[in-house]
């Protein structure tokens, strides 16, 4: 790992009592990834990747994560706007509750979703009785579980961007004859676009890696609800090499997310 020049020139000044644990921490975070790369069956990579089960899991993961991100954008951006702008009573409490899924163990989220949308859940029983719809253990359930866990990331990023945006631009739009909705679309949203994209990328990454809520609420049915993380976990018992290859793909996606996120934030800060 390369360190910036400033750190290197002052390196001699770091007390060993800090340097040793710092080096250990860095190794602790990086070595597992090295292990994964070392054990990757590079020669059989193509074969493993073209296995139908792998392709299926990859496709399902991408589709559900994209859909979950879309759901989060459509619902989360307005929610962020309300939290940042509207004068609603109990806004701070609402904000705290909405960010709860950030710290909630995902498996608890999965159980909670079952209690609400399961066939005998609060809402789910009516969905089933009246419309014959049963959500658990479907691809829709995967999207719901992912959106539940990932939405706070988007809401927090967009709310922060909205709070940081200069509201006087909205005043300017109003004096030019633009109503609230037009102002939101043509002025507010473009101004917070870097925040929205950063939030969407974080949201997508979180949705892609979702495990606990998905397996609890949606189960693990090949081609229907078995996303990449679930496939990795299951493959570890039957076909460790396939698990490594799947894990490598997820690692690659994460790196892409990280790079794109950095790019967004840098460009957002410089403009």
């Amino acid at each position: 790992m390369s360190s910036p020049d400033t750190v290197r020139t002052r390196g001699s000044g770091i007390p060993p009592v800090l340097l040793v644990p710092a080096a250990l921490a860095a190794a602790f975070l990086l070595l597992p990834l090295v292990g994964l790369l070392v054990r990757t069956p590079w020669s059989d990579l193509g074969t493993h990747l073209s296995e139908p089960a792998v392709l299926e899991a990859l496709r399902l993961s991408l589709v559900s994560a994209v859909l979950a991100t879309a759901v989060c954008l459509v619902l989360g951006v307005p929610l962020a706007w309300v939290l940042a702008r509207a004068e609603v009573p109990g806004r701070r409490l609402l904000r705290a509750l909405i960010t709860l899924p950030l710290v909630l163990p995902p498996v608890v989220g999965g159980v909670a979703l079952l209690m609400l949308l399961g066939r005998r859940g609060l809402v789910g029983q009516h969905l089933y009785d009246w419309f014959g719809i049963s959500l658990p253990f479907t691809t829709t359930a995967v999207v719901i579980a992912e959106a539940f866990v990932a939405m706070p990331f988007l809401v927090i990023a967009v709310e922060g961007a909205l709070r940081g945006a200069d509201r006087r631009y909205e005043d300017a739009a109003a004096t030019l004859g633009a109503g609230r909705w037009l102002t939101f679309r043509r002025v507010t949203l473009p101004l917070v676009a870097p925040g929205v994209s950063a939030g969407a990328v974080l949201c997508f990454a979180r949705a892609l890696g979702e495990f606990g809520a998905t397996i609890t609420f949606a189960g693990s049915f090949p081609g229907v609800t078995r996303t990449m993380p679930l496939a990795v976990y299951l493959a570890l018992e039957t076909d460790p090499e396939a698990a490594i290859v799947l894990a490598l793909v997820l690692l690659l996606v994460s790196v892409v997310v990280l790079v794109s996120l950095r790019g967004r934030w840098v460009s957002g800060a410089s403009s």
Partner: protein
Amino acid sequence: MTVHPGAGSRPGARRATSGEGDLAAYLWVDREGFRLDVDLLVPGGEVVALLGPNGAGKTTVLRVLAGLLRLTQGSVTLGGRVLDDPASGTFVPAERRDVGMVFQDYLLFPHLSALDNVAFGLRARGAGRAEARATATTWLERVGVSEHAGARPGRLSGGQAQRVALARALATDPRLLLLDEPLAALDASTRLAVRGDLARHLRAFGGSALMVTHDPLDAMVVADRIVVLEGGRVVQDGSPAEVARAPRTEYVARLVGLNLHHGRGVGEVVRLEAGGELHVADPLEGKVLVAYPPTSVTLHRHHPEGSARNVWQGTVAGLEQHAHTVRAQVTSASRPSVLADVTPAAVAELDLRIGAPVWLSFKATDTHVYPG
């Protein structure tokens, strides 16, 4: 045109009527320890400068007229249309008012080109894309920045951005144009050119215009009339020449560079509120104001001989370099504080230092006396 300084002993007691001017506003706003109480009439086509120190309520006036802030009491009428009247519950929001605004730092939308910024208001008011762009192009040509039509605001200079902001506000053809310190963000050299152009565009603009500024020169060059606001109230209202010649408050006097004393005229003298008497050339009975320029005040080391009738001794309380002269402030326990302009040579000759005793004199004929 009528303005009633301090008319609002009872809110709503006197309400401007639309017949008297295009913009008729009686503004009464109570906000966190600040009260705005302003009666304002602007005939169509008139350019009014709203002059005042920071915190006087100038921007609040603009925000109320634009519809970005609601009145507590009073009313705003533009061209006979009631825009804000809390008594009857009428409030027309900003986007449905016939009012354009140029903001202090322009607030051009950073993600739109100069052309699209100008076209924004036209599009918002229902024009098609091509039509809006064509009109916007004409406006950019009119203000002289058409070669920057495709540029984002971040790439425009201060003067260019100001012109785009003016074009954006004028393109929607408002009945009333509001300008919040439109020249404050410009450097001195750009300011001169932009100020002249702004005056020209406001002349060509048929509607009423209200420009907030704290620079008397901006007000003198651009406006037909100056309304001075202090502490949320109108303290003076008149043509630029009147305001420059006969300031009514210390603030205005300082802006236009005059000494100003309050007093009571008795025969050929004025008894000053701050103590002492002044001899004046044009006597006036009753409550009066006396103004005279610092250049007419002469300083001496000893009691001066000569014809000047106003002479007293004081102490130098301040010295400030002003272009080619030094402005000295002379205070006295029993007399008002006086500003005097002297040459740097005189400063050395008279050995002027802070705290030094000094005699001052000025002629009765240099004073201007008017009702206070």
